[in-house]
């Protein structure tokens, strides 16, 4: 990757803190100097704000899925014994694979004495390359229902977005991450230039932030924090700031609890389009601060 493209990931640990609203606003502010990647593939909502027009879409295959040819199956039971995921069903003496339970490890395939098992590529979802109404390119995806491997789909979305960012010579690649600390988060974080943490001063917000920060520390990524709903609990806000201070995490901004965030989303608008007053200034200022922090 051309290091002149700065990759910024927005994360929260806990869901529902305003991550997607804020990411969408940043994309609106930066326009065609930014490529957007929605890596919250489990619950990809960014397109509801950015109304992307799709230019390209493709199936995404990841991993394998076992299937048993009943005609060739001798019902020896070896596959069932081998499988550690309880994915082999026997109904009326017919062996079959439970596609939801199957991890695609091929163990059954290797032990089947009659070669009755096929390992086929598994369709895990779709990804899209689109143009948003803010003139950014956007790469997004839809994970197949009950599909595995969201981490790999995240990696795919990021790679596609990086390629476009390089080709288009934009300055920023902005990634909307997923909640949690598991494989999709690790896949979206590794190698990023900066992580924007969005949190709220609640017991859960602080708890989840501290866990996701531990991960960020491990991966040695520069970071800053936006405190949303900062006035909902002054005591917890102080506790949160003490934590951030102790970890040397700069506070990018503190947003007040404001129904406008929800009102804007309900109309499919970002906060910078919805509000012309203090919230718009807050968000605009935050984006400027993020850009400064990356380059500092």
């Amino acid at each position, binding site marked *: 990757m051309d290091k002149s493209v700065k990759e910024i990931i927005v994360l929260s640990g806990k869901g529902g803190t305003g991550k997607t609203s804020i990411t969408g606003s940043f994309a609106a502010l930066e326009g065609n100097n930014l490529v957007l990647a929605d890596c919250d593939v489990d619950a990809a909502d960014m397109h509801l704000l950015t109304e992307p027009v799709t230019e390209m879409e493709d199936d995404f295959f990841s991993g394998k899925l076992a299937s048993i040819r009943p005609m060739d199956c001798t019902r020896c039971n070896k596959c069932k014994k*081998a499988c550690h995921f309880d994915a082999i069903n026997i109904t009326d003496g017919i062996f079959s694979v439970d596609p939801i339970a199957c991890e695609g490890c091929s*163990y059954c395939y290797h032990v089947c004495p009659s070669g009755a098992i096929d390992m086929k590529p598994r369709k895990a979802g779709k990804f899209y390359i689109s143009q948003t109404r803010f003139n950014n390119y956007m790469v997004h995806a839809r994970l197949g229902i*009950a599909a595995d491997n969201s981490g790999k789909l995240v990696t795919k979305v990021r790679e596609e977005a990086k390629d476009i960012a390089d080709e288009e010579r934009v300055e920023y690649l902005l990634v909307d991450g997923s909640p*949690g600390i598991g494989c999709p988060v690790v896949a979206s974080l590794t190698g990023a230039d900066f992580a924007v943490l969005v949190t709220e001063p609640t017991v*859960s917000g602080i*708890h989840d932030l501290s866990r996701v920060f531990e991960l960020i520390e491990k991966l040695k990524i520069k970071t800053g924090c936006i405190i949303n709903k900062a006035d909902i609990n002054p005591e917890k806000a102080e506790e949160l700031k003490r934590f951030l201070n102790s970890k040397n995490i700069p506070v990018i901004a503190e947003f007040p609890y404001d129904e406008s965030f929800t009102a804007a989303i309900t109309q499919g608008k970002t906060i910078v389009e919805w509000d012309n007053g203090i919230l718009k200034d807050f968000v605009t200022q935050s984006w400027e601060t993020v850009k400064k922090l990356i380059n500092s």
Partner: protein
Amino acid sequence: MQIAIASGKGGTGKTTLSVNLSTFLAEKFKGTDQKVVLTDLDVEEPNSGLFLDGNLVHKEEQFRRVPEWDEEACTLCKRCAKICEFNALAFLGISVVVFPELCHSCYACSDLCPENALPMKYSRMGDLKHISLSENLHFVESRLDIGIEQATPLINQTKQYTKGHFDNSWISILDAPPGTSCPVMEAVKDSDLVILVTEPTPFGLHDLKLAVETMEELNKKTLVVINKHGIGNSDVEQYCAEKNIPVIGRIPHLRKAAEVYSKGELMFQQIPEIRTEMENIYNGITSWIKA
């Protein structure tokens, strides 16, 4: 009776509903034989425990099994690396390197190694805690270690713990992780009923639809609770009506609720409207059972 509380979108109120409903039910059934156990399966970000206080009954480390290379036994035939579908084994010069974070614990390399040079060894995933909150309310949670990427095995083992320690006479409530992929499916797959928590916004609706599709795929009976009722619009109600999914509770959007939540306290104990909603949700569940 096992009820999973799930949602597509994060932050819609799964934990809020889990802790409030469990405690509400335990209070309701106080003095009877009915007991309640809540299990937090959001092992990546377990939050239910922040709202609950009790006595530790039991704590244990949780492990999964991953292969460990036995240099002495290995003949460098490379079969293991060819077999592994997850690139969790690599040959570097004359040694085999195992990448535990990529391993799915399928045992194929270990069992199919002709020299038994890859025995499966324990590898830590996190901690499980079992807490007693009152006579008829217990709580189980697991916490994934930072840096461990796969939540599903820990979710599975936590469910096994609950199953092993609480028989069918308990009402078992599972606080599931957000999303629609493997961790959620593991969490809900053997529940009798799934309650999807959503909020009446376009984001909430979009992710609710994905969650409903996932539950349909798993053949799960689904009920909906709308949190932050009063914000947004009525599209979620309309969607549920079209899909014939009963909306059994509407937790009002109140600044006071957000404040109580921020402190880690239980809303239904402080806000009468929310207590009424817990009663409604309970009635919604029982009328589903009767139907």
